[in-house]
């Protein structure tokens, strides 16, 4: 399967959509951190003025405390986008100072369950959703509880930070361990992940494709866990016929990461990648830049090059 021409077309479209401020929006005029990071990752192999400008923009956007906001013009409060920025800066071997400050902020960021009072409240009063509040990860914005996507992105960033030698502290190992336990705790009963709860009001919640895929990417070092294998199986089955290139691309990224250990993943991968190629035939009509970037990353992962790899 020759994915290179498609990847190149996607990259060219993304380059043409860079804003004058050196960033990308989801599709609107609002430059935002998440799409900018994903596009940087999609363009990282070809050093260019686009990537350099985007990296400069991101570095100028860093808050004093080391975190990043959600979009250009946002208040200077750190949020979950700090993890994708750290990933992007590490992947492009950017100057270490801003990366270290970003990692430090992530290590110190604690979701609401970190406080004993809230843990007690979540155990005794707020128990309509069932989870173990002693296992916590990262939130979308400060002052809220842990959710799967921010936690998974942060776990990928921290594990890569350790792998690349940016930080190998005991604190990092502890947070990765705790975040991993949170992900495993919040897994849906049949495998896969909803946005952050497994059961609400006595009813099991249904998993989402993108959330499950990102969580699986963060857990590749726990491939032997039964829950991880169950989630992978759920994902392989759910992906067939997925009409959305965004979810399908995340699914391909996750399945590609497990093809070495799962026959089902290996067998399903080629078909899903072909479906993705078909969904991206009229690539210019896809307005969402995150979708385009993730499609490029997924097709790239077909050749074994995954930017989200956390294995040592």
């Amino acid at each position, binding site marked *: 399967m020759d994915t290179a021409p498609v990847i190149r077309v996607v990259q060219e479209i993304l380059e043409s959509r860079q804003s004058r401020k050196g960033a990308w*929006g*989801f*599709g*609107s*005029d*609002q430059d*935002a951190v*998440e799409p900018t990071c994903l596009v940087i990752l999609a363009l990282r192999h070809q050093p260019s003025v686009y990537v350099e400008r985007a990296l400069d923009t991101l570095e100028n956007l860093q808050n004093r405390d080391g975190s990043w906001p*959600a*979009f250009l*013009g*946002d208040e200077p409060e750190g*949020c*979950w986008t700090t993890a994708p920025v750290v990933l992007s800066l590490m992947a492009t071997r950017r100057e270490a100072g801003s990366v270290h400050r970003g990692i430090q902020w992530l290590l110190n960021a604690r979701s*609401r369950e970190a406080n004993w009072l809230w843990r007690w409240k979540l155990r005794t009063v707020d128990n*309509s959703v069932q989870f173990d509040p002693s296992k916590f990860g990262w*939130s*979308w*914005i400060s*002052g*809220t*509880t842990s*959710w799967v*996507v*921010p936690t998974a992105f942060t776990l990928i960033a921290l594990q890569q930070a350790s792998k690349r030698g940016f930080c190998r502290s005991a604190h990092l190992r502890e947070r990765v361990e705790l975040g991993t336990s949170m992900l495993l705790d919040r897994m849906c009963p049949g495998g896969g992940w*909803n*946005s*952050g709860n497994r059961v*609400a*009001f*006595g*009813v099991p919640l*249904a998993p*989402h*494709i*993108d*959330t499950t895929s990102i969580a699986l990417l963060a857990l590749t070092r726990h491939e032997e866990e039964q829950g991880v294998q169950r989630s992978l199986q759920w994902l392989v089955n759910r992906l067939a016929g*997925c*009409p*959305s290139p*965004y*979810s399908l691309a995340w699914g391909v990224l996750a399945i590609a990461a497990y093809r070495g250990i799962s026959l089902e993943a290996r067998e399903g991968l080629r078909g899903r990648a072909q479906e993705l190629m078909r969904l991206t035939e009229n690539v210019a009509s896809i307005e*969402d830049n995150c*979708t385009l970037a993730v499609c490029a990353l997924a097709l790239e992962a077909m050749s074994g090059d995954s930017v989200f790899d956390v294995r040592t």
Partner: protein
Amino acid sequence: MKLDRRRFVISAAGLAVGGMTTARLLPEEMLLRDRRLRRSRVAIVSAEQYSERLEELLLSGLREFRLNLRAKSVLLKPNLVEYIAGVEVNTNPVLVGAAAEAFLKLGAKSVVVGEGPGHQRDTYLVLAESGLAAQLRSQKISFVDLNRDELFKVPLRATYTGLEHLWLPRTVLQSDFVVSMPKIKTHHWAGVTLSMKNMFGVVPGTKYGWPKNVLHWKGIHRSILDICATAPMHFVIADGVVAMEGNGPLHGSHRHLGKIVLADDPVAADFTCARLMGLNPHAVWHLDRAAHFLGNGSHDRIDLIAEGLPQKTVPFDVLPEFVSLQTPV
């Protein structure tokens, strides 16, 4: 008594503290401008099923309101939460399509549909799987993902959450006529989810996350009031053809109401929907409070311009914590 400088400063400080304390003890709505219409109009329209007839029904219902839509941009905000096969979770695509067509026929310059789902990050996936994407494509109606639109910082026009402002999407703020199109459902946190709760979907995930968790921590009822006092909402078309009871908004059971509710006041719309559900709207905290400043709840300020309320209703099933809603209306 001589008013020296010291006495003046102490008295002023006392007045300030006293004023602030009094203000904190007063119900919030007493400090808010009364924005209620003199009278609100609500049309209950019978519709047994989702069919091509809906457009005709809506047109006829909307004409009763004598809306001036000439050269106006209309935003339809359906309730698009999640796709669950075989379950009527979302505002039905046929109704959304019929509303779009009806507003165009009534002279609107443009109609777009916008939504920002609370949990599902892949908005397009829900759009495609729910059938709304195909419906809108067939009518050449655009869709805007409100979770990822351009954002503007807007000062709050109510004080229930303690937040000073919200970031809201450009499409919501710049549309001339915003129509909330909820699915009539019970809700495991709020009791009911109607036109006001539906406006949670205009709060952008880009800023607040998936779900918009900060609003849950600030209190769901309080957040609904602040959002509805701040974001524009001009009209309501509520989908009660097939409604949901029990453990809504996702895992409840279908309840065939066979009604669509149109209104020029979201509070009046929600009070009427709650009454159709056989539930007491005053027992829903955000509805009760909203009726003090945002819109009309009492029967004597609501004109039912189409059908009347049924003489007798079997109350919707609710979770045990909401049985108080089933007290006589």
